[in-house]
């Protein structure tokens, strides 16, 4: 006879305010198999767990029901309590009376209490049919895949590789470096971005444990934690990297000019190009969309001038496969297009630029040699207006969130402007100054004191042209007055948005993303670098806007997670997997078709004992099965059962209500 223990949690006020907990306990006690029932304020706390452990021994319980929050929250905690008391952890059932009752029925305490009672009855009935289950061990492929070669991907790859774990780093563009390679100097110390980044880029290229695959994209990911298989498409570069010396003769001679992405389109590059002089790898690729040889079959000048004969116009895309155990996603950010700000004349006035364009101009290796100029006439601006929160914190036009880094980089821009053009003045329109970080507040103060930048608290309502000047009309909220600034150049700190490919990538990897396209972490506070899919981790702005220190910290955290995952030779897996009763299996193979994880294969077994004739039945790979139950639902001969959710368990639950 089953002996069930029921433990009902108050969850502070979360459950107790809307569910009458003592009544739920009394209801539980009425069930014949329940030998012990009790409530407690925080069942997940140590005293709460101790109550469970003690009761198991004292009342010789055979299964446990905890009525508390979602099993996603504390199932693991309570399973551990069972193991500690010498009980099989899978004899636990969680009745979710918080998310499923108290939180959703806050207006009707009686209904919430009744429902909580029902949920407990169901869980008790199910637990009676629970069986002892044991964790499954699966082998691990100790190689990590890092997607994206910005500072996040670089840092994660280096940290993992330093632990002597092989890393495959896949970068979409011809060079690693990402956004950080486009920056001039970095806040709050004004050290040169290139100077601190390029050594790391070189480290990546020369690290014995890093395989760098540039100009490539991940196109498929199969498998499960510890045993993923990735397909990577290497885009045709039309340059044989093995023989290319990076001499540059090809791009000097190429006659085709294309807007230069690295310089935000301010100047041009050639159709055969390396993105920037410090590129890693420092080998050119041919941009097939613009090369006249590839488009029309005419030209081929680069091939003529290449002494090594490295140009190969017949090269095609190549798909390679890698077996890996974990993935770090670090696809970075983009800038929001400010065109909806029609009152600013975005798109109509050339002298309104975004912050990355400004960054490129003041960069020593930028298109203007480090001097900010007006795109309209090339003149050096004396009065520059910076507008913060363009698109950020603006529900009506842009997006609701704060882009986090603009307050700091705008202060930096004021300082850089002052360094480059001594007799200039910056006017900064802001909503708030968010300078939370080590040395950040001091840095903003420095910008104000050192450069004389005028900080105006208020929004800009209109920008219009008057002669050569852009008239910026806004509010000085502290004076309660309208102000108008005659500007030579306007720089918009537009919102940060995730890479536009993120939703497609998320679907490919089987992870989730939010309404803006940011990839979602498993828990916003306690699991910020993991995704809901085991073995896939997030670093940098792909998860949310971040500055460089934060990005690097998160990348290192990813590396620690990957190293932890690879610490043993096998990883443990929940035993909630499907099994096939071969006697019942008719071999229809519908389960093979519906399995989203390709976990089901077929095998041939003798038709009967000792028979020579064979028949085909389904076979489940325990390591791959994720316990989703699709096969159970589709099986018309009821031959498949999912451990932990067997037919008797489910039927018991239904009968209980």
């Amino acid at each position, binding site marked *: 006879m089953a002996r069930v223990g029921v433990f009902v949690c108050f969850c502070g006020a979360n459950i107790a305010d809307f569910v009458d907990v003592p009544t739920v306990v009394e209801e539980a006690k009425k069930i014949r198999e329940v030998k012990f029932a009790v409530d407690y304020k925080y069942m997940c706390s140590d005293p709460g767990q101790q109550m469970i452990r003690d009761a198991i021994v004292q009342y010789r319980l055979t299964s446990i029901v905890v009525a508390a929050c979602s099993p996603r929250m504390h199932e693991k905690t309570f399973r551990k309590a069972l193991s500690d008391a010498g009980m099989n952890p899978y004899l636990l059932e969680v009745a979710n009376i918080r998310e499923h009752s108290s939180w959703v029925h806050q207006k009707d305490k009686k209904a919430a209490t009744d429902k909580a009672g029902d949920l407990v009855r169901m869980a008790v009935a199910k637990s009676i049919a629970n069986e002892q289950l044991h964790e499954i061990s699966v082998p691990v492929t100790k190689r990590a895949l890092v997607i994206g070669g910005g500072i996040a991907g670089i840092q994660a790859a280096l940290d993992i590789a330093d632990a002597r774990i092989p890393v495959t780093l896949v970068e979409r563009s011809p060079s690693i470096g990402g956004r950080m390679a486009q920056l001039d100097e970095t806040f709050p110390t004004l050290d040169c971005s290139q100077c601190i980044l390029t050594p790391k880029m070189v480290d990546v290229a020369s690290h014995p444990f890093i395989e760098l695959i540039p100009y490539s994209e991940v196109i498929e990911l199969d498998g499960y934690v510890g045993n993923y298989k990735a397909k990577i498409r290497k885009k045709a570069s039309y340059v044989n990297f093995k023989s290319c010396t990076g001499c540059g003769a090809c791009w000097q001679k190429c006659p085709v000019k294309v807007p230069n992405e690295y310089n935000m389109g301010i100047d041009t590059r050639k159709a055969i190009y390396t993105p920037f002089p410090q590129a890693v790898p420092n080998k050119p690729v041919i941009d097939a969309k613009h090369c006249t040889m590839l488009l029309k079959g005419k030209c081929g000048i680069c091939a003529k001038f290449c002494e090594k004969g490295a140009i190969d116009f017949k090269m095609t895309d190549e798909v390679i496969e890698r077996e890996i155990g974990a993935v770090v996603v670090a696809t970075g950010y983009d800038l929001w297009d400010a065109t909806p700000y029609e009152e600013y004349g975005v798109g109509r006035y050339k002298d309104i630029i975004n912050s990355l364009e400004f960054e490129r101009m003041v960069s020593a290796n930028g*298109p203007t040699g480090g*001097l900010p100029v007006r*795109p*309209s*006439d*090339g003149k050096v601006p004396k009065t520059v207006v910076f507008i913060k929160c363009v698109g950020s914190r603006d529900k009506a036009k842009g997006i609701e969130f704060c882009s986090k880094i603009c307050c700091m980089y705008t202060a930096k821009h004021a300082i850089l402007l002052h360094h480059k053009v001594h007799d200039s003045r910056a006017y900064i329109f802001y909503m708030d100054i968010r300078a939370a970080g080590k040395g950040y507040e001091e840095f903003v103060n420095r910008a104000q004191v050192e450069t004389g930048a005028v900080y105006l608290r208020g929004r800009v309502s209109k920008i*219009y042209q008057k002669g050569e000047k852009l008239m910026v009309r806004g509010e000085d909220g502290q004076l309660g007055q309208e102000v108008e600034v005659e500007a030579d150049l306007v720089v918009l700190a537009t919102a940060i948005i995730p890479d536009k490919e993120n939703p497609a990538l998320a679907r490919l990897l089987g992870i989730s993303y939010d309404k803006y396209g940011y990839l979602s972490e498993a828990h916003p506070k306690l699991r910020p670098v993991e995704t809901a899919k085991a073995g896939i981790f997030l670093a940098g702005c792909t998860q949310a806007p971040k500055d460089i220190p934060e990005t690097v910290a998160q990348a290192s955290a990813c590396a620690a997670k990957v190293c932890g995952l690879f610490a043993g030779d096998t990883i443990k897996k929940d035993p909630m997997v499907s099994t096939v009763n071969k006697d019942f299996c008719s071999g229809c193979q519908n389960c093979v078709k519906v399995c989203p994880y390709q976990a089901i294969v077929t095998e041939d077994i003798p038709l009967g004992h000792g028979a020579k004739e064979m028949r085909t039945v389904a076979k489940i790979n325990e390591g791959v099965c994720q316990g989703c139950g699709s096969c159970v639902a589709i099986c018309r001969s009821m031959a498949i059962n999912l451990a932990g959710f067997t037919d008797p368990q489910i039927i018991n639950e239904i009968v209980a209500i």
Partner: protein
Amino acid sequence: MKKVTYFPGCSAHGTSEEFDQTVKMVMKTLDVEMEEIPDWNCCGATSAHTMNESLAYALPLRNLVLAEKLSNDTMTVPCASCYQRMKFTKIHMDENPELARKINTAVVGEGQYQGRVAVKSMLQYCYEDVGIEAIKTKVTSPISGMKIACYYGCLLTRPKAITQFDSPEYPMSMDRIVEALGAKAMPFDFKTECCGASFSISDTDVVLQLSGKILEMAKESGAHAIVVACPLCQSNLDMRQPDIEKKFKVRYDLPIFYLTQLMAMAFGYPKDKMMFSKHIVPVDGALAHIGEVIEEPKKTAKGKKAVKAESEVE
């Protein structure tokens, strides 16, 4: 032949009679038959909606209910204020049937509001329902040579949630119509700035400043004249122009046309039908430009090239 319900509003029978007259001429040419709402009443602008919410809904609602008695499915309104009140009421009634029932009790004698008739400004009707191509085919004497600043004011395209037409900040519909007539629409940043509206009477100084700025920027754009589609815009910019010139010691000499006046001219109606005599700022100077050839200024070096030139010099 299209048919449309017409709500003239009080100004069409007073200060903006020339708007009313030219609208009728233009619509005739465009093969649109206009059917005026019988026994229409005041739309409630601008006092009702600042004093009493229910009244502000009830006044336009009565007109909407009356409009539903006619068979047409669209109503067009020349005055921007009237248009705004009608559309505002329509949207709120359609979104909130409970409110519609409540307000309807005030005008129950006229019938039950159904939300059947679309409300469009004259500009919107010409742009969307008639269309640029149809307007172009009717142009017999193009007004080429004229440089025009199109002024939309604050109510024709704003707020976007109510008007659901064109851009709230930099609309282009009137510019396109003006270009269809052969004129050149100038880039004009102040096309949706506030003219001061009814402060014209209670606090004239505000209007002198706001409208003055609009005139200044229109002049700066190189325009010979300003085109409007709102009686209050017209009266502020036209009637107050001498005061503005006096106050700021400038000379603008910018006649303020109704869009339909220019359309009528391009459609070949004689000049004396336009009631130009009602204008304060004389129109002849601007009209004299008709037929002139506008020389396109040489395209300045593109921004990116300019930047590059600079960097090469470095």
